């Protein structure tokens, strides 16, 4: 396929997914916004006032980047794993793309792109809610870092969702990973606390959690401070993303879970 034809194919896949997610917006965007609203209400307004400041800012302001990231991570992952899984098992509509000349890397890009779009849009919506809750006073150190981390994180978790969708053999298979792996990693990655408040052994464990680097890098974009250097965060996130891109393209090329 020429590069123009590749673009058309990519655009078709992305457009189809975006039309779907806006058609059912109450299922795709609203749940994350509602959950975040409750987090802001409980942790920010009710409990936050008793916790006091953290790293020189109000607790509410401190948790905002983590909660925005939580929304991006979960929706990007869920979008790709779910759409891939359903198109593979539900009516087998994935064959529409598999029989076409769309190359494997583009096939991955098309599915993953939808997850990135949904993750970033959800993140923006949650940020708007946070902005209102904090009385329009969230500091922004670098919009470039914020957007860069948001897009790269959505990409990383969308790619991870793709792997899950590829391996899942039942609907339970796409729910197990978010419930037992993703959620604990996010919660223990420093959304609600600074790693410096933890005992040493727990700190050491936290450094092995990729979400720790992602949340802190993102937080740096807002507050200008984090538990770890933003450069380290970028290197970790970028490296993991490259690994997942390679894995996914390899799996699709081999037809893993797609071709008998």
């Amino acid at each position, binding site marked *: 396929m020429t590069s123009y*034809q590749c673009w058309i194919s990519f655009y*078709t896949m992305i457009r189809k997914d975006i039309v779907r997610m806006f058609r059912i917006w109450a299922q795709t965007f609203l749940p994350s916004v509602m959950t975040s609203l409750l987090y802001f209400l409980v942790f920010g307004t009710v409990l936050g006032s008793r916790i006091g400041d953290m790293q020189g800012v109000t607790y509410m302001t401190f948790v905002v980047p983590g909660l925005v990231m939580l929304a991006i991570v979960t929706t990007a992952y869920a979008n790709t794993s779910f759409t891939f899984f359903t*198109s593979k098992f539900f009516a087998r509509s994935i*064959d*529409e793309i598999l029989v076409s000349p769309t*190359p494997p890397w583009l096939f991955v890009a098309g599915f993953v792109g939808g997850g990135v779009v949904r993750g970033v849009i959800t993140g923006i919506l949650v940020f708007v809610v946070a902005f209102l809750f904090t009385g329009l006073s969230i500091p922004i150190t670098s919009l470039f870092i914020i957007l860069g981390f948001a897009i790269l994180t959505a990409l990383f978790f969308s790619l991870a969702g793709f792997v899950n969708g590829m391996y899942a053999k039942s609907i339970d298979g796409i729910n197990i990973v978010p419930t037992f792996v993703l959620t604990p990693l996010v919660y223990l990655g420093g959304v609600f606390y600074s790693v410096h408040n933890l005992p040493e052994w727990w700190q050491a464990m936290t450094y092995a959690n990729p979400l720790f680097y992602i949340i802190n890098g993102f937080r740096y974009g807002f507050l200008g401070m984090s538990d770890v250097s933003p450069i380290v965060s970028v290197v970790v996130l970028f490296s993991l993303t490259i690994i997942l891109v390679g894995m996914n393209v390899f799996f699709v090329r081999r037809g893993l879970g797609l*071709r008998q």
Partner: protein
Amino acid sequence: MNESVYALEIKNLFKTYSSGTQALTDVSLFVPAGGFYALLGPNGAGKTTMIGIITGLVRKTSGSVAVFGCDIDTDAEKAKAHIGLVGQEVNFNPFEKPIDIVVNQAGYYGIPRSVALPRAKKLLQDLGLGDKMEERSFALSGGMKRRLMIARGLIHEPRFLILDEPTSGVDVELRRSMWEYLRTLTVKGLTILLTTHYLDEAEQLASRVAIINKGAIVVDGTMSEILALHDESEQRADGFRGGKLEEVFIQLTTETV
């Protein structure tokens, strides 16, 4: 390079599934360009596996497959661009509209929406779905879903169309109109590989035929050559006699005890 005179060239094709099932054994098949070619065989004979390999949905164990001279391993994108597939099972998202299903399919072949949209409308109208193109696809009848799949398979103007039992569950009138439509396309140069259990249809439509049984081609040739295998004198034990092709088919695929 001279283009192959064959729409499809299959040489020494083997397929063994991970379960150990040997689905295809040393299959070689040459489908000339133009017209209908019937690939017949009982259930589980290997027809759908062969179609899966040609279209890239199933991995072959060994052998080679080329579509209009384009090898499916080394020149996969070009080979796929030549092929249109109408599969055995309904495999589109039922929540999408027919027009979107067909236009999106064009997109996967790199055809822009500005070109695909009028082409899709014409195809759907030609196939009698003009007034259904904006409805949700789950509301379509079985026959309409089949016709939608044909429109989807033709949207990128393939030179080689594979129809895997396209008329199962379709009423007589609709089947006839579908064949009439497809026949006009073969006149314009389209090659159609057809699998069907309606042997009378195959006998009327196809100029060449291959019969596959237990993963191996048992006979292939022109329709007249295959029909010439019919033994008028042979009387079946149950006394029932079908069409000539049906009798040859039964003779070649039924196990003798």
